[in-house]
C-alpha cells in the first residue's frame, strides 16, 4: 500500500545543504508492521516526516517518490495532504504531553480532528470523542474528556495522542519513538495497545525506533538505516541470528539482552580480554534504614521508606525501578547532595548521613564518593571547556595547580578514551559519547572509592552505550572502585552488575545476586519489570 522509491531529503543549514536521507527504497504491504531502526542521524524520523510532508521549513524532498494508494505523496497538493493526514495516514510522536495543546481540553482536541475529517457533526462529536478515548482503554473516558493535558500522566497523554491519531480510522499509523520518556511498564502497555489496535483494525504500521529489541518484538519486518541509507532489511529473527551488513551486526551486538557478557556488546574482533573484577570482603557502603519524607501539598510524601543495603569494596550494585520509586532520591542522599530524614549511611564505618549536605563540599570525604549524571549535556557547564570541567575537582578538592593539573587531566582523558586534542572544546562542540566520557573523567578525577552512576547511558545511542559500558567495566578492574548503577534497563544491569536491588514506591521489594534475581524473580513487581523489557530474539552465538 505504500511504496517508497529513491527518496531523498535535504536540509538547508548554516553550513550549506545537508542530505538527511540519501535515496531509500522500501515497501509496505497492507496489514504489515514495519520497523525502521537506526541511531541518531540515521534519517529514520526524517523519512516519516517527509512522507507526511510535515518537514521543518528548511527541509525539502529532493528526489524519489512515495506512492500511497496510487497518489504520489511527494507531488500531492497541500490540500490533498491535509485530507490524507489523519484520515489515511496518522502519526504519533515522542514526548506525549508536549504533543497536546496545553490549554485545550483533551476531548475537544479529538473532536477537532473528527469534525475536520467529517467523521462527526457538532451534535455527536462529544460521543464519538469519548468512544475514541475508550478505544485506547482509558478508564472513565467521559471524565477524562474534560481534562487538560497537564492533569494527565505521561502514559495517559500518550494514549490520548493515540486516540487522536486513530480517531478517523486511518489505514497506516506511523509511530515515531513513541516510548521515549515513558517507564518500562508503561512502554509495554502503550506498545501492546498500539499493536492490538493495529491488528484489530487491519492497519499497517511503521514503528520508528532506536531499539532493535523493541522493533523485533512488535514488527513483522525491520529496515535498518544508517546515515540516510538503508543498510539491511529483513525478518527480525533473521536479522538477529544472521545479520549480513557490518552495521547491523554492530547494532545487534550492542543491543543488551539476556545472554552474553559485557564484552559481547562490542563488535566481533574488537573484544579484548576482560579480567574479572575483585569484590572485597569488607562493606564499603552500608545503608541502614534510610528514609526521606517530603512535605507535600496534601500530606507527607514518603519518597524513600527505610531501605537498607550494602555495597562491598569493588562490587557493582544495580538499582532498578521506575520513575517515582525513590532511586533518584536514594542516590542523591548517598552522594550527599540531599539530607535524609532518618537512617544511616556508613562509609567505611563512618556515618556520613549525619554530615549536612550543605557543607559536604568542603569535607575530606567529598572526594571519595562521586557521581556520573544521566544527561551529560546538562551536567557540563556550557562555558567550561572539557579540560576545565575535568580539572575543576582537581583544583577544588585535591588542591592541585599548574602542570600537575594538566598532567592529571590528560591522564584521565586517556583513561576514559577521550581524545586529548578535543580537551579544549566546549560541550556543544562534542558528541554525546564524548560528553559522557568527560563526565566520567571528571568523576574519577579525585580517585573515589564509590561511584554512583545515574542512568549514564540513557541518552546515548546503543552502539555508544556499548562502548561506555565496556569502559566502565575496564575502569573498575583497573581502579578497583565500587559502582551503584541506577538504571531502568534490566538487561544492562544484568551485564554490568553483581548484585541488584529492585525498588518500588520507596521500598526495596527484592534484592540479591543478579543472576538469581533475573532468572528467578520472587516479587511480582520484579516479574512485571522483567516481562516488560523488550525481548530480542535469542542468538545462538553470544
Amino acid at each position, binding site marked *: 500500500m505504500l511504496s517508497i522509491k529513491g527518496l531523498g531529503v535535504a536540509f538547508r543549514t548554516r553550513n550549506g545543504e545537508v542530505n538527511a536521507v540519501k535515496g531509500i527504497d522500501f515497501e509496505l504491504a497492507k496489514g504489515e508492521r514495519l520497523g525502521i531502526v537506526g541511531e541518531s542521524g540515521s534519517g529514520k524520523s526524517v523519512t516519516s516526516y517527509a512522507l*507526511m510532508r*510535515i518537514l521543518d*521549513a528548511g527541509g525539502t524532498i529532493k528526489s524519489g517518490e512515495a506512492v500511497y494508494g496510487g497518489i504520489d505523496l511527494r507531488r500531492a497538493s497541500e490540500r490533498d495532504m*491535509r*485530507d*490524507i*493526514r*489523519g*484520515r489515511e495516514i*496518522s*502519526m504519533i*510522536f515522542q*514526548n506525549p504531553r*508536549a*504533543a*497536546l*495543546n*496545553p*490549554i*485545550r481540553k483533551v476531548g475537544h482536541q479529538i473532536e*477537532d*480532528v473528527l469534525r*475536520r*475529517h467529517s467523521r462527526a457533526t457538532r451534535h455527536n462529536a462529544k460521543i464519538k470523542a469519548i468512544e475514541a478515548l475508550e478505544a485506547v482503554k482509558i478508564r472513565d473516558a467521559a471524565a477524562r474528556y474534560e481534562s*487538560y493535558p*497537564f*492533569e494527565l500522566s505521561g502514559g495517559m497523554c500518550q494514549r490520548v*495522542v493515540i486516540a*487522536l*491519531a486513530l480517531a478517523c480510522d486511518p489505514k497506516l499509523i506511523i509511530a515515531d519513538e513513541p516510548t521515549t520518556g515513558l517507564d518500562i511498564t508503561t512502554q509495554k502497555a502503550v506498545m501492546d495497545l498500539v499493536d492490538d489496535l493495529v491488528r484489530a483494525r487491519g492497519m499497517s504500521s511503521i514503528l520508528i525506533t532506536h531499539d532493535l529489541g523493541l522493533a523485533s518484538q512488535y514488527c513483522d519486518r525491520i529496515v535498518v538505516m544508517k546515515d540516510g541509507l538503508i543498510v539491511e532489511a529483513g525478518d527480525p529473527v533473521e536479522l538477529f541470528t544472521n545479520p549480513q551488513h557490518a552495521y547491523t551486526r554492530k547494532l545487534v551486538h550492542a543491543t543488551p539482552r539476556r545472554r552474553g557478557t559485557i564484552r559481547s556488546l562490542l563488535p566481533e574482533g574488537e573484544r579484548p580480554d576482560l579480567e574479572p573484577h575483585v569484590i572485597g570482603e569488607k562493606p564499603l557502603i552500608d545503608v541502614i534504614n534510610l528514609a526521606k519524607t517530603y512535605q507535600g501539598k496534601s500530606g507527607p510524601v514518603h519518597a524513600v521508606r527505610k531501605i537498607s543495603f550494602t555495597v562491598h569494596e569493588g562490587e557493582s550494585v544495580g538499582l532498578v525501578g521506575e520513575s517515582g520509586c525513590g532511586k533518584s532520591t536514594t542516590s542523591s542522599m548517598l552522594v550527599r547532595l540531599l539530607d535524609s530524614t532518618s537512617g544511616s549511611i556508613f562509609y567505611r564505618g563512618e556515618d556520613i548521613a549525619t554530615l549536612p549536605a550543605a557543607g559536604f563540599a568542603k569535607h575530606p570525604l567529598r572526594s571519595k564518593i562521586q557521581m556520573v549524571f544521566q544527561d551529560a549535556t546538562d551536567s557540563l557547564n556550557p562555558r567550561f571547556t572539557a579540560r576545565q570541567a575535568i580539572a575543576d575537582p582537581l583544583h577544588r578538592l585535591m588542591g592541585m595547580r599548574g602542570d600537575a593539573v594538566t598532567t592529571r587531566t590528560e591522564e584521565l582523558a586517556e583513561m576514559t578514551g577521550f581524545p586529548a586534542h578535543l580537551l579544549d572544546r566546549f560541550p556543544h562542540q562534542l558528541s554525546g559519547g564524548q560528553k559522557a566520557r568527560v563526565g566520567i573523567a571528571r568523576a574519577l578525577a579525585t580517585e573515589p572509592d564509590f561511584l554512583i552512576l545515574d542512568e549514564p547511558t540513557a541518552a546515548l545511542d546503543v552502539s555508544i552505550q556499548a562502548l561506555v559500558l565496556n569502559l566502565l567495566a575496564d575502569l573498575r578492574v583497573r581502579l578497583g572502585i565500587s559502582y551503584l548503577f541506577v538504571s531502568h534497563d534490566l538487561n544492562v544491569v544484568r551485564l554490568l552488575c553483581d548484585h541488584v536491588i529492585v525498588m518500588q514506591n520507596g521500598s526495596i521489594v527484592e534484592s540479591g545476586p543478579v543472576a538469581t534475581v533475573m532468572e528467578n524473580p520472587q516479587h511480582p513487581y520484579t516479574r512485571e519489570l522483567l516481562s516488560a523489557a523488550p525481548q530480542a530474539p535469542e542468538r545462538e552465538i553470544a
Partner: protein
Amino acid sequence: MAVRGTSVLTRIAQAIPVLFGVIVISFVLTRALPGDPAVQFAGIMATPETIEETRAKLGLDKPLPEQFVVYLGQLFQGDLGQSVSTGRPVLTELTSRLPASLELTLSALLLSCLVAVPLGVLAATRPGSWVDQICRLLVTMGVSLPTFFTGVMLIYIFYYLLGISPSPLGRLDFIYLDPPHVTGFFLIDAALVGDWETWFGAFKQLILPAVTLALFTLAPIARMTRAAMLSALSSDYIRTARAAGLGSGRILCGYAFRNALLPVVTTLGMVFSFVLGANVLVEKVFAWPGIGSYAVEALIVSDYAAVQGFVLAMAFLFVFLNLVIDLAYSLIDPRFGTSGK
C-alpha cells in the same frame, strides 16, 4: 476551576501588601520634596507666627510616623489634601481630569493593538516576507523613538506643514462646548447625545496624541506577538495538529494564537507601565488636560499634595490594571495557579 478561583483570590490578596508599600513610598517621597508647604499655604503676607500656625494646622510639626498614620486615616476617607495651585481638593482635581487621560491612553492602546497584533501574527506566519521585514523594522524603530519627539514631529508635519490637524491645545477647540458629562469620555458622551459635530471636533483633537502614544506601544506589542506566535507555531502540539490534518485556519486561530496570547497578555502589563509614564509626556506636548499635565504643573510649583496624589493614583491604577490582566490571563490559561506550567 476551584483552583483557579482560589488562585485569583490569592493574587488579589497579594496586591494588598504591594499597595501598602506603594503608599509608604509615595508618602516618603513627597515628604522629601523641597520647598516648605507651610510657607506656601500661609501665603505671601505671612509672619513667622502664622507660618507656624499653618504648619501646626497641616500637622507638619508632628513626628513622621505620626504624620503617616494621620495620612493613612485621611486616605481611607478619600481625603488627598488640598491642591495649593488650584485650591480644590486633590481628589476632585484627579477625578475630574482622569477621564481625559483614560480616553487618551485607552484609545492609544486600542489603536496599537489593532495594528500590532495582526502585524505580529502575519510576520510570524510569513517569516522572511516583506510583512516580516516591516514588522521588524517598526519594532526596532519604535523602541528607539522618544515619545515626546514623535509628538513634536507629528505636530510639525500635520499641523504646521500639512495643516490637517487642529492646533494642539487640548481636547476640544473652544468653538465647541463640552458634551454633557456621562462618562467623561468626549467621544462616548458626544455619541450618546448624537452631537456629531462635537464628536468630530473631539476626534480631530484626539487623533494626533493618540497616534503618538500608539506608536510608542506598537513596538513591544508587535515584537511580543511575533515572538510568541513563532514559538507557538514551532511547538510540538502544532506538529501533532498538522499531522492530524487540521487545516491551517483552525491551527492558526484556535491553537497557536490562543497559546501565543499568553505571553502577549503578560507583556501588556509591562506596556501599561510604560504607557502611563509616556502619557505624562504626551499630555505635556499636546496640552492635554489630563492628570499627567496636572502633575507636571504641580511639580513645578511644589504642590506636594497634588504630586503625592498623582503618584498614588497612578500606582493604584497600575496595580488595578495588573490585576485585570492577571484575571484575563487566568481565563485563557487553565494552568493558572497550578504547577502545570
